[in-house]
C-alpha cells in the first residue's frame, strides 16, 4: 500500500542496547523527518533529510544516528539506548518543490520503552 510506514510499532529494549527504528515511504518524497513526542513537549525534531545521502540535525539529535542511502528509507538508530529516550517516535515525509510549503505526512509511530 502507498504511504508511510514505521516498524516496529512497539519496542521494549534495555539500557545500553542499540536499536533501530525503520521508516519507509512510497511517495518518493524528497524530505523525511524523525520526531519524538513527549508529554509537555509536543513534537521535537531529531533529524531530517532533504534527499538521499543528505541529513541534518534537528532540535534534539544527541544519542541518535540516521542514514539515508535510498530515498524511500530513513532509519533512526539509538546507539546506546537510555531511559530518557523512552518516547513515541514519528517519521514524516513531504514533497519538495523549491521551498513550497507542502504539508508533512506522518507515519503511525513507534512506541519505544527503554528499561
Amino acid at each position, binding site marked *: 500500500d502507498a504511504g508511510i510506514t514505521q516498524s516496529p510499532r512497539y519496542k521494549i529494549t534495555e539500557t545500553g542496547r542499540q536499536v533501530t527504528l525503520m521508516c519507509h515511504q512510497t511517495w518518493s518524497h524528497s524530505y523525511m523527518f524523525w520526531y519524538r513526542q513527549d508529554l509537555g513537549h509536543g513534537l521535537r525534531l531529531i533529524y531530517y533529510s532533504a534527499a538521499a545521502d543528505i541529513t541534518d540535525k534537528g532540535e534534539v539529535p544527541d544519542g541518535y544516528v540516521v542514514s539515508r542511502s535510498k530515498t524511500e528509507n530513513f532509519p533512526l538508530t539509538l546507539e546506546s539506548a537510555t531511559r530518557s529516550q523512552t518516547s513515541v517516535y514519528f517519521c514524516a515525509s513531504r514533497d519538495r518543490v523549491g521551498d513550497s510549503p507542502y504539508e*508533512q505526512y506522518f507515519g503511525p*509511530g513507534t512506541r519505544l520503552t527503554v528499561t
Partner: protein
Amino acid sequence: AQSVAQPEDQVNVAEGNPLTVKCTYSVSGNPYLFWYVQYPNRGLQFLLKYITGDNLVKGSYGFEAEFNKSQTSFHLKKPSALVSDSALYFCAVRADTGTASKLTFGTGTRLQVTL
C-alpha cells in the same frame, strides 16, 4: 528561532457548540502555519495550512483557522463541535525562507467534546 505557543492544555466543549483552539507563533519573516490532529495511537493528520492570501483558511472535517498577523495568532475553529472531534491538536509554524524544511510544533491541546 521560531516557536509556537498553545496556551491551553485542554479545551472542553459541548457537542453542537462552537470551538476554538488557540495558537500563537513567533517566526522571522512570513509564516507558514499548519494545524494537525492526532487521534489515539495514530500519527498526525494534516488539517489545514495558511500560506498567504485570505486570512480565513478552511480545512478538513469542517475546521477553519483565522490568521491574524498583528496578533501573531492562528486559532483553529469549528462552528459546531462533534464528539468525534475529540483528539489532540497541534499547531506548527515554519518561516517562508531560511529553515525551509523545519516545522516547529506547539505542545498540543487536547480537545474534549461531550454530549
